[in-house]
């Protein structure tokens, strides 16, 4: 299987197939990224689509020194920040979910909503987007050690909440 970076270079050279493959790989993860952070499903879909359109527009600017995954999430983070500036009430965690699948989901959302915003973001990037500490540090412009410490703190806070929930 070709690496994301190889696909991106093929795409830069004009291959539509390479872009389709990248789209298939990252469509759901990016939608998940926005969906977990925004209350509106429609906006999450629109922002996913905007991320890919931004990639299409800025193909030539991509430099192979960054991982494609980091590049995509960097665009997604910028789009989300712009969205939050436009509509500050757009955040999802902690809000009553629009489609609660079960109590567990509801509990997770509320527990995440109670975390410090930066720690929540680090934890979510690690657990849901599966990013490495170095990638998170790069995306959030933080020192690597800060990422590790804050992640530990977030997990300990969740552990405390989990224990408190047990009968």
């Amino acid at each position, binding site marked *: 299987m070709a690496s994301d970076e190889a696909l991106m270079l093929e795409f830069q*050279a004009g291959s539509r197939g390479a872009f389709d493959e990248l789209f298939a790989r990252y469509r759901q993860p990016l939608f998940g990224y926005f969906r977990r952070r925004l209350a509106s499903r429609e906006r999450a879909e629109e922002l996913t689509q905007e991320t890919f*359109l931004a990639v299409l527009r800025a193909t030539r600017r991509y430099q192979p020194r960054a991982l494609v995954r980091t590049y995509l999430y960097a665009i997604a983070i910028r789009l989300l920040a712009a969205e939050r500036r436009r509509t500050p009430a757009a955040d999802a965690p902690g809000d009553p979910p629009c489609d609660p699948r079960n109590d567990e989901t509801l509990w997770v959302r509320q527990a995440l909503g109670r975390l410090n915003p930066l720690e929540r973001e680090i934890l979510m990037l690690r657990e849901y987007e599966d990013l490495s500490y170095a990638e998170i540090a790069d995306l959030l412009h933080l020192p690597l050690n800060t990422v590790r410490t804050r992640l530990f703190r977030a997990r300990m806070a969740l552990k405390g909440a989990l224990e408190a929930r047990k009968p």
Partner: protein
Amino acid sequence: MRPDMHPIEPEELMAYLDGELSEARASETARHLAHCRDCQAVAAEMQSVSRTLLAWEIEEAGPGVERAVNAAPLPAPPRPLWKSRMPWIFAMAAAVIGAMVLVRIQGTHPVSRAELLTEPVEVKQAAPEQNEAGPPANEPREPQVARTAQITLTASDFPAARAALDEILKRRGGHIGSLTLGSPPDAGRTLDAVLRVPAAQLDAALADVRRLGRVETEQQTGEEVTRQVVDLDARLANSRNTEQRLADILRHTAGKISDVLEVEKEIGRVRGEIEQMEAERKSLADRISFATLNVRLNEEYKAHLATSTPYGLSRLRNSAVEGYRNAAGSLTGAAAFLLSAGPSLVLWAAILFFPARYLWRKIR
């Protein structure tokens, strides 16, 4: 949890579970985790937090995303440099032909020189384009795997097993990364070694090591690093291109001193990056070409019952020596006491003798 009891901090344990520790620290943590109940509990709690978080699943993205992206036009592929410079090439060719015609008219024939002049223009312009469009990342690669094996053995003849281990290393072209030998008084000897063996020889070396004793545990892992290698190669090629371009700028610049200094500073930065990436690449290549083999060799422990007689004799001898020392010590002590307290005793006896005699006579 007290850090003096646990060499691994909980935060480090978390980094281990996330696969974010260095190889050496990760194997140390794995060893500690294997026998530490407290740390096992902490690890289980962290894994439980991660599992709980995964309960929040996300529905599939709607088809709208796909439609919008598919409808977007694909950007035009970058125009080759020679195409964008076409007008200039035509202009230059026209000028050269004009010059040739002029020279012909004047009766000289430097046609071949003029042709030579036109050729390198196109070659020069095409070269950097090729460099940019064809980094090695596009070539299909074989998977690059950094292999690690772990084996624990119990040997009845410990010195022979150790010697055989050195022999295996020599035969397979490997070397010792680190080696620790333990020899506790009331247990068998142990040897912990980290061996680096050429990756192609790992299986053969493992087979040899297995013959040294009874195998208790064995584990093999392979970390796929193809992506890191491809990424690093691409970044290296890119930085080398940047360095080349900066060097060209420096060569042809006729600007201010501050500009020149700025370019030199940038070259220094890029060179630093290149050297760092080259070091990373070398260490990665070393991990791929040399597999790590962790060997733990335990000696089969036999309790020694035959030592009682010599041990008893030496104990008697020690007691006799101690008795003599005690006797000599008590004599010296008494003599020392007499010498230190004697004069005072004589003095007091002399002072108290007459009053005591007087009292004694009076009572009698």
